[in-house]
């Protein structure tokens, strides 16, 4: 019995030593390092960008990380995102602005992308993309696309079609030289084609839509806007045939779509049907 008590006492001391109280370091550098370390560790465990995002637990944890270092830009970004996704711009913006303040090279082009995607705030988006040109010596790729690609979309939203085409030209040229034409995004050709269509350059627009058909085979939007060009050029039978293909692509989910927002120039089945029925009333 005496031995057993000794064992118990040992276990007790082991437990006490394991549960040593964590202390907050005095120096700023140490606190910053600890803040980053906790962020990385907890992000690996829970993933701040997935279903943990916006939960009371996730938000409290990010608060604690920011309490150690209020300049931790990665944590500021992470804590802002649930407000962005859930439609609370007045709460998202000050937090994301702080992330930009403390790490502009990383987060300013990203803020441009978010302005563009979530608010279609083209002017603010372009300002951020332009700022990224001087912040870094390389072309930034927020959300996997170059700032030139995003500027092409932003100018298209502003109905400044010439600038839109100029940025898509730049983007497509660079991507083609770097990796080959078949690596360029479908949307780059699609939106450049739409800009040409809006300018009334139907042949140039068709060239882009044809390119999509050659490189990717399927795209409901490319065929829909191609059909629009053909209607203007009085080629109704060809347009009807393309609209049939557009309908098939649409039904096979081969179309523009985003989980969080409607995409610019996104079409619906009713648009294709309406255009079809307008051809031969």
């Amino acid at each position, binding site marked *: 019995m005496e031995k057993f008590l000794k064992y118990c006492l040992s276990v007790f001391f082991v437990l006490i030593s394991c549960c040593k109280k964590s202390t907050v370091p005095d120096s700023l550098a140490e606190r910053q390092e600890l803040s980053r370390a906790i962020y990385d560790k*907890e992000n690996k465990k829970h993933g701040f960008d997935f279903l943990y995002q916006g939960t009371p637990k996730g938000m*409290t944890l990010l608060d604690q990380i920011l309490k150690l270092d209020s300049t931790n830009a990665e944590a500021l970004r992470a804590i802002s995102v649930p407000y962005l996704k859930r439609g609370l*711009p*007045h709460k998202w*913006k000050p937090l994301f602005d702080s992330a930009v303040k403390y790490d502009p090279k990383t987060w300013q082009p990203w803020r441009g992308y978010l302005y563009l995607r979530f608010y279609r705030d083209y002017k603010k988006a372009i300002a951020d993309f332009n700022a990224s040109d001087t912040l870094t010596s390389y072309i930034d790729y927020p959300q996997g696309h170059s700032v030139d690609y995003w500027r092409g979309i932003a100018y298209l939203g502003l109905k400044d079609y010439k600038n839109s085409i100029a940025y898509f030209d730049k983007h497509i040229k660079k991507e083609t030289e770097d990796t080959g034409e078949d690596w360029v995004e479908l949307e780059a050709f699609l939106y450049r084609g739409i800009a040409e269509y809006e300018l009334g350059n139907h042949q140039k627009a068709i060239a882009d839509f044809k390119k999509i058909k050659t490189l990717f085979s399927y795209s409901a939007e490319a065929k829909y806007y191609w059909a629009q060009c053909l209607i203007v050029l009085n080629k109704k039978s060809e347009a009807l045939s393309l609209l049939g293909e557009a309908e098939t692509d649409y039904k096979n989910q081969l179309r523009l779509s985003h*989980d969080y*927002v*409607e995409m610019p120039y996104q079409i619906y089945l009713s648009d294709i049907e309406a255009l079809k029925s307008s051809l031969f009333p």
Partner: protein
Amino acid sequence: MKKWLKILLLIFGGLVLLILCLAGYGYYNYWAKYPVDKQKYPHEIGCLDPSNPDMNDEFQRCEPGKKPAGYYHSAFKYAYKNNPTKFKRSVISFFNKEGNYIDSGVLGIRFLIDCNGNIGDYEINEMDVNYDLKALNRNMVDLLLKFCLDKKHWKGIKDRDTYMYLIIRLEHGKILEILP
């Protein structure tokens, strides 16, 4: 008690204790190390207060206390009776006909649709063009609110509540964009 039995019991007890300690340590490290600030974050971000006003008197949550469909980023893909584009066109057409305002800014509307398609628990956030809170013209907000939250635009999901938000960007009294 026989000696071998005592040893066996000690080993077994020790192992159980060790497993409990490891499980407790794991739980603490994974989940309980950072306790939740329930005062600051009583609910998930975006949760709408049940005491908010309802647009339809018949509004009643079908799953009270549960997260609504689309709580993570809105249910824009399936909440409209038609589609987002048609809804936007109808709002712009109505507003251009009925509205005569000069305001610039952003109007945020967040709401729930119950399983019967009734609208309730809505919240409005009025902002300037830089997304800072700032009051917009009261009549203009009421006009947009009444039109946008008309149940003719929305459909409920069977047995579930649906979360939806709208962001309307205005410039000099004209609607620039409606999101998402």
